[in-house]
């Protein structure tokens, strides 16, 4: 009788199983870590906006007083109002111009179309800082020219402010709106417009009753994107505004330079909430589109 010492050799299949189960666990870990990394700072920010401590480094109980301080602060409310005004006005203008540009780019063949196509993407690609500096220069020259031309001095002179900020925001938002609207035009079945014309609709009625209803989700998507980007923008606004046109991001930045107060946490939380509402609205628009 012979005895065999049994040695355990795992088969290839068993090794595969082992790797697979560990791989799955690591993937889970990766996901959890990523979420933590992304959201812990935000959770801390929101939590500390309710912290009853002036320094904010230690939890000392729940309070809403920083929100009270925030809403009773004239300059914060003013900045919020400025931000919303800039976002609404620049979104409306950029959406109209961007949609028209998208229609022209998709429908017509004209000289230099390719070059224009490339130029449209430029504001998205070039760094904000470059755009900010160039707009600053542009407005300085423009306002200087206007003031000289009309002899405006001192109090009467035109200065950078909300007007220049709105123009700057329109300038970068047109590109985003155009790109979003163009994607919905690319999927647009052109024979629908021919069908409308065939049934007696002229160009305008065709646009109003067929083209517009079908691309409106794309236009709304572009508008929401523009609104968010405008509300969010710091760099370009910083370079193009004046003392009268302080938006919320600039206000927050200005306050941080002086001292970190829990009030900033409250303001940031409100901004976060606004962005989240916009995202939810855009998701609903997407749903409605389907």
């Amino acid at each position, binding site marked *: 009788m012979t005895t065999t010492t049994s040695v355990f050799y795992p088969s290839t299949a068993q090794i595969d199983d082992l790797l697979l189960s560990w791989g799955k666990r690591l993937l889970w870990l990766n996901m959890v870590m990523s979420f933590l990394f992304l959201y812990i700072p935000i959770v801390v920010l929101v939590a500390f906006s309710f912290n009853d401590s002036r320094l904010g480094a230690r939890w000392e109980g729940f309070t809403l007083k920083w929100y009270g301080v925030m809403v009773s602060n004239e300059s914060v409310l003013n900045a919020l109002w400025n931000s919303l005004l800039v976002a609404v006005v620049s979104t409306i203008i950029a959406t109209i111009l961007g949609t028209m540009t998208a229609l022209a780019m998709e429908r017509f063949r004209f000289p230099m179309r390719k070059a224009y196509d490339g130029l449209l993407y430029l504001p998205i690609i070039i760094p904000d800082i470059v755009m900010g500096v160039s707009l600053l220069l542009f407005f300085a020259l423009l306002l200087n020219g206007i003031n000289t031309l009309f002899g405006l001095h001192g109090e009467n002179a035109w200065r950078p402010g909300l007007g220049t900020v709105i123009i700057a925001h329109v300038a970068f938002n047109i590109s985003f709106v155009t790109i979003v609207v163009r994607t919905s035009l690319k999927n647009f*079945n052109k*024979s*629908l417009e*021919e*069908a*409308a*014309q*065939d*049934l*007696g*609709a*002229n160009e305008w*009625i065709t646009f109003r*009753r*067929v083209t517009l*209803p*079908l691309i409106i989700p794309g236009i709304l998507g572009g508008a929401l994107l523009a609104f968010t980007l405008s509300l969010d923008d710091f760099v370009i606004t910083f370079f193009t505004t004046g003392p009268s046109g302080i938006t919320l991001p600039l206000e927050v930045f200005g306050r941080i330079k002086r001292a970190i107060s829990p009030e900033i946490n409250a303001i940031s939380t409100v901004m976060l909430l606004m962005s989240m509402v916009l995202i939810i609205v855009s998701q609903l628009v997407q749903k409605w589109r389907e």
Partner: protein
Amino acid sequence: MTNFAVQLCDITKTFPAGRSGRNDVAAVNHINLSIQPGEFFTLLGPSGCGKTTTLRLIAGFEQPTQGEIFIQNQPVSKIPPYHRPVNTVFQNYALFPHLTVGQNVAFGLNVKGVPRHEIEQRVKESLDLVRLPDLENRKPSQLSGGQQQRVALARAIVNRPSVLLLDEPLGALDLKLRKAMQLELKHLQTQLGMTFIYVTHDQEEALTMSDRIAVMNEGLVLQIDDPVTIYEKPATRFVADFIGESNFLNGNIDAVLSDKIQVNVAGTQVFSYWTNNGLKRGQDVTLTVRPEKLKLAPLNGTNHGTLIGTVQEIVYLGTDTRYLVGLLSQETVVIRVQNVGGDRSVAFAIGDQVKVSWFPEDIRTLIV
């Protein structure tokens, strides 16, 4: 002046060749068409032959490079699509996805400002006409292909156009539905007395429905005739080949007689009754004959005036059997024999020596 529904006079349409920098491409090349009121007129040809371009020229989606189009004897070159008295049934239906079936059908009447109660009545009528009642509130995406096709048809005919243009409207339907719709379309056309201009690449569809067919290829109209003439007397080799199946035999004229010509096909003397002015002795011609017009017989003493060959292939098709016979001249001919004798019908086997014959009036002479 004769009253025509649609007339195309010397119409040419060229498209720019694009980047290649070569010559412009003529999609339609100097074509002339005169379509009678109430006619079912079909433009038939392979893809890229210019039939759809011709339809789009009539609808007004394209402008002719040269020539003039008349609709009800009015020149329409300067009239935009939305003012032309024609309506189109599009190949992909082009139903408005954001509107209901009822709104789709009512679109043309709404645009023209027809009173509301009249719109409702006419929408209902035309949906009944295409046998699609009770679906008014559905969206096009909730309908089957066949139903969408009917909605597209209803949306066009509700406007009571003088001419209805149909661009391969049955192309996306399955065979059985297509056959049913062919008959229905023909019935509808007779019922409404409307002029139909129908574009298709399906020769069977064209033969089934049309009063007259214009066969097109490479931007040219090759023949305009009724279905029987198109099939029985094709004017060119392309027409003979494109519509149905045809055999082609190359030969040389031996003699031009008063009522027929004698042609030498690979050493065999055959006759064609069809004479054409200007045919001369010694001229090369192509004879064309339909597979069902050829007769197959075993070899015997009297082989005069027939072609001798070997059976190479036999395909049993149910209603008939298709034989491929290789001739001594290396050419092959296809012969269809009706299976009237039940299972005794297939009387030949591969390798059998046979003779192929026909009535001289069934063969056509095409000038090479």
